[in-house]
């Protein structure tokens, strides 16, 4: 079949049909000053070899996490991904086209998603989990909308430890459904401060542990107090690896849990695609967003897997659906699930303990430097330093020395009280030599 879309003849025929002389005439409603005239200045056609050389030259300008001592966290973390993960995700059982949910042809994908849900439920300590959302921040925002549906209240309170990108995502989605948001001021250890903001219209309290500053908090009492006031507790975690060591949100009484799952099986890749883990109490199952896989039996009585409870979703429920997201982060969820299976329960705990140990060794090394202190009282693999000078230029100076030394709070929030604060993370990928290199470079930059 000939497939030449939009030939000049097609275009003329369409324009003649609607009675317009040129395509430009369709844009007369846009003020002339706002319209681009002429063409976009793009380089001419080049062969594959030239393009590859050009793109490699662009890529060489980056300082890759794999090539530099890397201590960046604040929501995305560098962890080791075994080569087996990349190999297994390419197996034919998992390779199907977009939205591979027809049970007749997609048992591989559906079974993995079912197991993924089991893993997420066990990690978070919650009874039910969905087949994933886009990332941690959209999962958190979906949690807030879900709390509105459950409580029929219209306000979300957010802690001062919630990652500002998560806060902004929640504000964007909540605004669209007429929900008010109340963000507490940035605070290193203030998850409980949210309780003072609860009123009769508060649908949920959103806390993060470990939070933006790395502070880990037992939110049990916050959960009980929020629930006593008729609000749900949403627990956010940006570092899924922490769930291998810390008390789970479910054990602490969370109603809804939203986790960024990138740390397990998904590379940094400039910030995405990632995978949002979403779990809740069973009584809220019907109000959950996203796809759910269920176990069933086929006509022959054999075990099989299908999407279930789809009446919550947009393709059936239309405007009353629990979410306008009708998909999931399938490939990343697959990688997550395979990495989890390879690690096993004990393996995950072991990696988590290494993360904890590495980060505490880093803290000890860095706080030996005159004028440098850690402000984070309890942490997993990430903490926040207070430097004697503004943090952003220090990060630039470290980068010039080939070290990626963390995220200055000033990149995320303009509060001048935190201008000297620097979030640093360490994982199993950081060697003793990396830590020593970082410490001596930081000392040099500060002297």
């Amino acid at each position, binding site marked *: 079949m000939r497939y030449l879309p939009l030939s000049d003849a097609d275009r003329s025929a369409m324009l003649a049909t609607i009675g317009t002389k040129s395509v430009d005439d369709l844009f007369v409603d846009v003020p002339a000053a706002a319209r681009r005239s002429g063409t976009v200045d793009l380089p001419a056609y080049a062969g594959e070899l030239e393009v590859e050389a050009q793109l490699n030259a662009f890529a060489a300008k980056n300082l890759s996490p794999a090539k530099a001592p890397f201590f960046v966290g604040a929501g995305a973390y560098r962890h080791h991904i075994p080569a087996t993960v990349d190999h297994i995700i390419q197996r034919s059982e998992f390779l199907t086209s977009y939205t591979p949910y027809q049970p007749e042809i997609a048992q591989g994908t559906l079974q993995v998603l079912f197991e993924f849900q089991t893993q997420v439920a066990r990690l978070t300590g919650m009874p039910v989990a969905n087949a994933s959302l886009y990332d941690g921040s959209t999962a958190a925002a979906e949690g807030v909308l879900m709390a509105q549906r459950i409580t029929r209240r219209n306000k979300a309170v957010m802690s001062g430890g919630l990652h500002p990108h998560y806060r902004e995502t929640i504000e964007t989605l909540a605004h669209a459904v007429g929900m008010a948001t109340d963000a507490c001021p940035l605070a290193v250890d203030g998850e409980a401060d949210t309780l003072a903001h609860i009123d009769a219209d508060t649908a949920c309290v959103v806390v993060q542990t470990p939070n933006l500053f790395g502070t880990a908090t037992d939110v049990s009492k916050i959960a009980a107090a929020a629930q006593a006031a008729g609000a749900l507790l949403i627990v956010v975690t940006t570092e899924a690896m922490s769930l291998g060591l810390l008390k789970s949100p479910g054990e602490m009484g969370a109603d809804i849990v939203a986790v960024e799952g990138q740390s397990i099986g998904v590379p940094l890749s400039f910030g995405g695609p990632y995978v949002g883990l979403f779990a809740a109490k069973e009584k809220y199952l019907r109000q959950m967003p996203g796809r759910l896989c269920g176990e069933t039996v086929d006509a022959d009585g054999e075990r099989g897997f299908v999407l279930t409870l789809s*009446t919550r979703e947009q393709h*059936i429920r239309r405007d009353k659906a629990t979410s306008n997201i009708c998909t999931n982060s399938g490939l990343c969820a697959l990688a997550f699930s395979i990495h989890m299976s390879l690690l096993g329960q004990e393996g995950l705990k072991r990696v988590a303990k290494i993360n904890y140990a590495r980060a505490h060794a880093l803290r000890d090394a860095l706080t030996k430097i005159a004028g440098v202190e850690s402000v984070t009282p309890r942490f997993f693999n990430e903490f926040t330093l207070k430097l004697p000078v503004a943090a952003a230029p220090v990060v630039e100076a470290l980068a010039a020395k080939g070290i990626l030394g963390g995220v200055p709070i000033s990149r995320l929030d303009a509060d001048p009280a935190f201008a000297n604060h620097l979030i640093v993370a360490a994982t199993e990928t950081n060697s003793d030599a990396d830590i020593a290199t970082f410490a001596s470079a930081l000392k040099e930059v500060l002297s």
Partner: protein
Amino acid sequence: MMKFTKDHEWVSVEGDTALVGITAYAANALGDVVFVEVPEVGKSVKPGDGFAVVESVKAASDVYAPVSGEVVDANTELSNSPDVVNAAPEGAGWIAKIKLSNVSELDALMDRAAYEAYLDTL
């Protein structure tokens, strides 16, 4: 006294309260009901408000309040056995009890003979 709406809800009036459910025709059209979201007790409703949801294996449908008033009871038994809506739609499968705030609204609804005549036109 039982009255019916064009959206296939029934209202069974006793004094100033009314039981509300979906008709046998609606239950049959939906197929096997797997979940019923009943309204919150205390909620105020007016005619046409979507105040409950019935989900079957085929679809999820809103149930509209046929009359104005306050929800004084909801059939929470349906969360354990939603199939009662299929087995006894116009009896044990009731969804909510509403305290009527405007009895005259009942006049606008159909009686059984009128509803059956309406079904014949569908």
